[in-house]
């Protein structure tokens, strides 16, 4: 019997599914624990909350961080290294310059103000023990990777009630069981069955707005400091965990359809690549 709970957190819709056969009390407790974990991590990692640990880091340039912020920043820096800069947490100012300077629900869909991409280069971030230090002018955005991290942490708590799936607005983490997950395509509906795997989708079909007559979206290309220009509409990637899936989806999205397909095939990363005209399966998916 699949039990479900939905709620809003981190600026998106969260969905918790549990294949439960235990006591209702234990299930409620697991749902409450997982939901609370999302709110707890949002309070730490949101760049839109003045009092979050991330906002304090961005404001002060250096802080003694708690274990969650330390872990997410370390994961983000590792991802920047592995993707050779295609994933970069230091695009904060580029996102703000593009108009994504507040929670997405509060962004005006259209404005005549023109946006200027800032000069970008991989900003210096260092971790010394529990201290995170940013170079002057560097600020972090941990939106996507933070959601993947939160999905994994919530799944750990939810798994106490049974096999489960956590869908954090597109970042999906699972524990146990087999979970059919629908993927939006340009053609026929596609369903992927996940077993002990995670999945994430990145794209420019949502979180869009217009500035000065230009269509903008939230996926910044760190090489240009502007919203990425790519023939891909969205990319869905399957990986061992949601953080890995989120990073790979973003990196493949920036690569463009042709390069993304070759890269996914070569690295064996199961991926669904969606353009305006077609949907391609790569990395061993068939």
């Amino acid at each position, binding site marked *: 019997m699949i039990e479900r709970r939905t709620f809003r957190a981190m600026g998106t819709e969260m969905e918790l599914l549990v294949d439960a056969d235990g006591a209702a009390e234990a299930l409620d407790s697991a749902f409450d624990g997982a939901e609370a974990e999302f709110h707890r991590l949002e309070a730490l990692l949101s760049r839109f909350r003045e009092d979050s640990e991330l906002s304090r880091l961005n404001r002060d340039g250096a802080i003694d961080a708690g274990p969650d912020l330390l872990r997410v920043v370390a994961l983000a820096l590792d991802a920047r290294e592995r993707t050779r800069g295609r994933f970069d947490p230091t695009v904060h100012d580029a996102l703000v310059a593009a108009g994504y300077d507040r929670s997405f629900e509060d962004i005006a869909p259209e404005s005549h103000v023109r946006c200027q991409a800032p000069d970008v280069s991989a900003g210096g971030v260092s971790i010394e023990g529990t201290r995170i230090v940013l170079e002057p002018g560097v600020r972090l955005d941990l939106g996507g990777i933070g959601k993947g991290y939160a999905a994994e942490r919530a799944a750990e708590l939810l798994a106490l009630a049974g096999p489960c799936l956590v869908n954090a607005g*597109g970042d999906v983490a699972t524990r146990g069981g087999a979970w059919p997950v629908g993927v939006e395509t340009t053609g026929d509906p596609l369903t992927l069955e996940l077993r002990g*795997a995670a999945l994430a989708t*990145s*794209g420019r079909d949502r979180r869009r707005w217009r500035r000065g007559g230009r269509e903008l979206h939230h996926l910044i290309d760190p090489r240009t400091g502007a919203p990425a220009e790519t023939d891909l509409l969205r990319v869905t990637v399957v990986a061992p965990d949601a953080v890995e899936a989120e990073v790979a989806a973003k990196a493949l999205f920036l690569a463009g359809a042709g390069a993304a397909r070759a890269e996914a095939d070569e690295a064996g990363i199961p991926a669904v690549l969606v353009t305006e005209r077609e949907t391609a399966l790569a990395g061993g*998916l*068939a």
Partner: protein
Amino acid sequence: MASHTGRLYTLALGLVVFFLAWAVVAAHPWGATVSDPRLKQLAAREAQLRRQARLVNRIVALRWAAYRSALKARQAQIVAAKAQASQLAAVSSVSAPSGGVRVVTLPPLTITRTS
């Protein structure tokens, strides 16, 4: 002559004993601790500290017992969670030997969209 000298010695010894007794009585060491107000305060303070120490020890003992009981319960929870997690991992590894994903025609339980 000898009797005269003996009397003198006896008189001198009597005077020494008399003055010694006087000095001892004048010093009245048995009443000093009671009559000095500072010593009284110190004694009262010591008694108060002893009472407080007994109270603190009792509180610490109670909290220690509560902590040990909570620790025991938490350790039991952790053991149960680990057992459940390893059971889930065992189920996953048995049922998903080939990388964990395949395309199916089942209706989806959830949908992934751009995050």
